[in-house]
């Protein structure tokens, strides 16, 4: 704040000095060389002088010579109205795609529609929360709690108990008591640990190449992510920003931290029945940041237009982005 106070103080000083120069100019006593030196000394001085001049000039015009009042233009209303309509659309999608919990085979399951977020309590009292467009199945036996994420992203809060495993994309992780965010990516399962431990599990489909002796399993601790894929599992630390962005959806928000526009749009599209499409390939790499409401892209699109001059044109329920 002190920077701003300094700047404010400097502006006040410039305003006072500018008024002095203009008064001396009017009185015919101005020293032009000194004035020029003052004006050139700082851009703020030139601006202050022009501002003083503007009130001086504005004071001259007698009010009778002013043009008649004209109705204010109502331009831009249509756009505002359109944005409002888009905002409503997210809500409609959310209502239409209600979640349904059903019993399928020996597994229980719960699903969430696009733009929907569901909470549920598992048989042992542990909690799960489904992000948009997700499908979670579970089967709790006497020896194991098995969770299968068939689609999407699920947050888990596991109570102490028998071993728990989470499966997805043909991969498996063993979870301790704790809180986790599990998200399926193309060909991969990403487990972020908030509390507890997550270990890459090799036992599931057990293809076990002949010589491959049991490696020490990769284990992720709090504020780490465990990425399981066809390649070897890897553990990487997650920054506070990354952690915040990872769980933002639980508050109905979506956070971008310098993501390329393409990634941000893909992320947003998970929540939208009508998708956003980037028409101009030049736009895909532009980095964007921000925190938005996940189910309503109006603010996001407006920020793109405002900040990056990218236009969002409605198209078949979605939007096309162009410059």
């Amino acid at each position, binding site marked *: 704040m002190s920077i*701003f106070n300094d*700047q*404010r103080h400097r*502006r006040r000083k410039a*305003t*006072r000095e500018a008024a*002095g120069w*203009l*008064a*001396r*100019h*009017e*009185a015919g*006593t101005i020293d*032009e060389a000194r004035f020029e030196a003052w004006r050139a000394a700082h*851009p*703020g001085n*030139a*601006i*202050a*002088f*022009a*501002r*003083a*001049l*503007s*009130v*001086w*000039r*504005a*004071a*001259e*015009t007698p*009010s009778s010579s*002013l*043009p008649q*009042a*004209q*109705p*204010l233009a109502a*331009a*831009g209303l249509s*756009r*505002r109205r359109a*944005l409002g309509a888009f905002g409503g659309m997210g809500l409609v999608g959310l209502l239409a795609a209600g979640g349904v919990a059903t019993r399928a085979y020996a597994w229980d399951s719960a699903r969430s529609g696009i733009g929907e977020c569901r909470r549920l309590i598992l048989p042992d009292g542990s909690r799960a929360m489904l992000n948009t467009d997700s499908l979670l199945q579970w089967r709790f036996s006497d020896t194991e709690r098995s969770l299968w994420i068939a689609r999407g992203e699920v947050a888990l809060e596991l109570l102490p108990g028998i071993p728990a495993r989470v499966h997805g994309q043909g991969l498996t992780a063993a979870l301790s008591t704790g809180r986790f965010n599990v998200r399926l990516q193309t060909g991969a399962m990403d487990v972020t640990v908030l509390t507890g431990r997550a270990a890459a599990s090799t036992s599931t489909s057990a293809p076990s190449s002949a010589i491959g002796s049991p490696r020490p399993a990769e284990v992720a601790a709090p504020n780490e992510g465990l990425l399981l894929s066809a390649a070897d599992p890897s553990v990487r630390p997650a920054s506070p*920003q990354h952690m915040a*962005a990872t769980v933002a959806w639980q508050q109905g928000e979506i*956070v971008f*931290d*310098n993501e390329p526009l393409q990634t941000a749009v893909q992320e947003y599209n998970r929540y939208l029945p009508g998708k956003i499409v980037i028409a101009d390939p030049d736009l895909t790499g532009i*980095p964007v940041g*921000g*925190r*938005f409401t996940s189910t309503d892209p*109006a603010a*996001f699109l*407006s*920020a793109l237009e*405002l*900040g990056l001059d990218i236009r969002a044109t409605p198209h078949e329920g979605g939007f096309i982005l162009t410059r």
Partner: protein
Amino acid sequence: MPVIRPIDIWFADEVFPHEDRFLAAALRISGSREEAEDLVQEAFTRLYTLEGWAAIDNPRAYVVRMLRHIAIERLRRQRIVDFRQLADADHLTLVDETPDQHRIAAGREGLRRVSDLIASLPERCRTVFVRRRIEGESSKAIAQDLGISLSTYEKRLARAIELLSRAHLGGETETAGDGAETCDAQGRR
């Protein structure tokens, strides 16, 4: 170089009358009033160094676009950015689309405000300002008639201009309620 150059007149007539609007727009994009004022100041600074200012046919829209770009530049330097404020600045784009009627109306409002502000000046300041500016009397004649030195006249006039430009910024309402002494209390700050 003349004291009052073409760019100064252009600024005075085409840019500053919309300053309230710029500030309102900047307030929507920034977190605080200080930041907003700083944003506007930065836009003015850049505008002042622009070679092709005379070719700008709609200075108001131009400045609003500058504000937008400067705000974005600043946002990009931060890590996690709260874009929601930016999204609120919907009306920034409205400004771009509005035709000349709007400018005229804005100008009218600005003038009405200036005459109100003049009325609220401390009396001694107002007298010299009105006689010089509105009635067009010569500085020497005014000073002689009031029985004050040219230097005192000059200080009162400067104080009037200062109070008007500060009030014009919209942020400081020091003009109203100041006693007549204020006008002559030149060096107190």
